[in-house]
């Protein structure tokens, strides 16, 4: 990936950091360009007459684009945490029951909301309901991952962990289905929710997503060297005096919080969390600290690009961005698996 430099000193010096900041710059530039494209992309083609469409830009396209970037960033971040925490490059926050848990939390709140006779139209949802949904999605995601960890007897065996994640996912989804049978109102809301769409992201959503990212990213980066130590194996990390129990709890919590917030605001958006850290690792050799930040940026770029594509590919119709990322991410994962076997 990099040209080899002459002296051994130069070869071991902060070369990784240099390329990491290079990648960070590129991702930042891509983010800005995509944000501009996001402002210009409309249902009737690209438009640069921003002065005429100021209200539209301010109230719809700007929060939607920023929100999409932030949701993608949370997913990319959560994926990087999951892959480090579970020592598995194919780990994805969704595979560990957090998404199904978040989905169940959302369904329960929607059902409770409809039972109470409250209006739960998503576009008009008030701040209170937003917070309630994020909270429910967060608790659901945490519960899903915790259940997976309990069933797998800890995070030590990646394969059984992933299998338990699948089981928990199926179980919690089944419970969601059951709740929706009882409360058809929740079903409608859930379908919009879990489809994976960035169409409803307003300033409230962007604010919530931004706040969550501002909390979880620095928190995880602060303990990122524990993820580095886990590369050596659990026992070796413990032999270095790393407080694994506490760190793991913190990381599972931030991962669940990031996933929960993203799902609550934008629904189930597939593969961004899995793919973003992979792309970063393909480009640079970095420790987990920079990896977490770069994965967040890459996730933001991926989802915002996906959002713009979803808006423009079949305009004036709109694709749900979750469908788009599922198709593209699935293809990427297949290629990745084939390459691993080869």
């Amino acid at each position: 990936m990099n040209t080899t430099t002459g002296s051994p000193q130069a070869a071991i010096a902060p070369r990784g950091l240099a390329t990491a900041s290079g990648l960070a710059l590129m991702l930042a530039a891509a983010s800005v360009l995509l944000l501009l494209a996001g402002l210009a992309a409309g249902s009737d083609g690209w438009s640069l007459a921003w002065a005429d469409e100021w209200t539209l830009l301010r109230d719809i396209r700007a929060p939607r684009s920023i929100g999409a970037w932030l949701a993608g960033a949370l997913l990319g971040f959560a994926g990087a945490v999951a892959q480090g925490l579970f020592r598995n490059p194919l780990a994805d926050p969704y595979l560990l029951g957090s998404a199904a848990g978040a989905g169940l939390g959302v369904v329960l709140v929607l059902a409770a909301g409809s039972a109470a006779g409250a209006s739960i139209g998503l576009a008009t949802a008030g701040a209170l309901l937003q917070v309630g949904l994020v909270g429910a999605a967060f608790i659901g995601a945490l519960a899903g991952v915790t259940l997976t960890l309990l069933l797998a007897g800890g995070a030590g065996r990646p394969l059984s962990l992933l299998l338990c994640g699948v089981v928990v996912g199926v179980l919690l989804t089944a419970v969601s289905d059951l709740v929706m049978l009882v409360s058809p109102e929740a079903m409608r809301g859930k379908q919009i929710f879990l489809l994976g769409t960035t169409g409803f992201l307003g300033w409230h959503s962007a604010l919530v997503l931004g706040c969550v990212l501002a909390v979880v990213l620095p928190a995880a980066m602060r303990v990122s060297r524990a993820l580095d130590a886990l590369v050596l194996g659990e026992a070796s990390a413990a032999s270095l005096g790393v407080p694994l129990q506490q760190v793991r709890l913190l990381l599972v919590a931030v991962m669940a919080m990031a996933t929960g917030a993203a799902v609550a605001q934008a629904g189930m958006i597939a593969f961004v969390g899995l793919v973003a850290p992979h792309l970063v690792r393909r480009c640079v050799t970095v420790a987990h600290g920079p990896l977490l930040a770069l994965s967040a940026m890459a996730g933001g770029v991926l989802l915002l690009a996906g959002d713009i594509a979803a808006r423009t590919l079949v305009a004036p119709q709109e694709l749900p961005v979750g469908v788009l990322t599922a198709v593209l991410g699935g293809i990427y994962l297949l290629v990745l698996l084939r390459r691993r076997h080869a």
Partner: protein
Amino acid sequence: MTLAPVAAPLEATGLCVTLDGRRVLDDVSISLAAGQWTAIVGPNGAGKSTLLSVLAGLRRPDSGAVLAGGARIDTLAPRERARRIAWLAQQGEADGDLAVRDIVALGRLPHQGLFGTPDAEDRRAVDLALEATGATAFAARRLGELSGGERQRALLARVLAVQAPVVLLDEPTTHLDAPHQRAVLCCITGLVRQQVAVAVVLHDLTLALAADRVVVMAHGRVHAAGHPDDPALHAALADVFEQAISIERIDGRDGTRWVAVPSP
């Protein structure tokens, strides 16, 4: 006037460990002296790795105690324990996309703590460890891209970077070819020169017989312990390996060496 006796860098007495109803360690006592390397040998299942993980404070014994520099290790804070005892796991567990230099820098975690940032001393310790293991040349490469020998040197450098007075290595030479085995041995003797107390679990008896002291384990007990020249030790080795090997003497230019050869 006599000086107060200096506490051994690592001393364990009466260690017992039971796993799934099986006595894995049965009343094991062992003492590691500064500037000496101890080879721990024995057949598979003798309890060697368990002993090492108990000595490293990673597994709590059912009874018995481990003292590091006179202090019970279960009373030490994890970071303090990690500064006193460096431990290298058996091969195969470490895996990932981290650069070798970042791996080695993990050896400074006990000094920095999770939130600390490396200072000049940390960077120097990492450089020294990379140099001592000959890993400087591939310090920027990823662990997953290395050959078996390079990988083991990188992981050994991580242990050296701790600069602990006690170093415990679990089968550091397994799966390595002769030059890489020799490189690992050179690192060990380098540590010994720096007055580190080293204990190494080894499968290769000939390598073990180059140690200052050999501890022979069988069925969770210390079967024998002594200097590699000791005929009683040789008899004990033949005994625990069911007479499948014998110890032969080679007189070379640089003195006497002992080799383990398969019995006919």
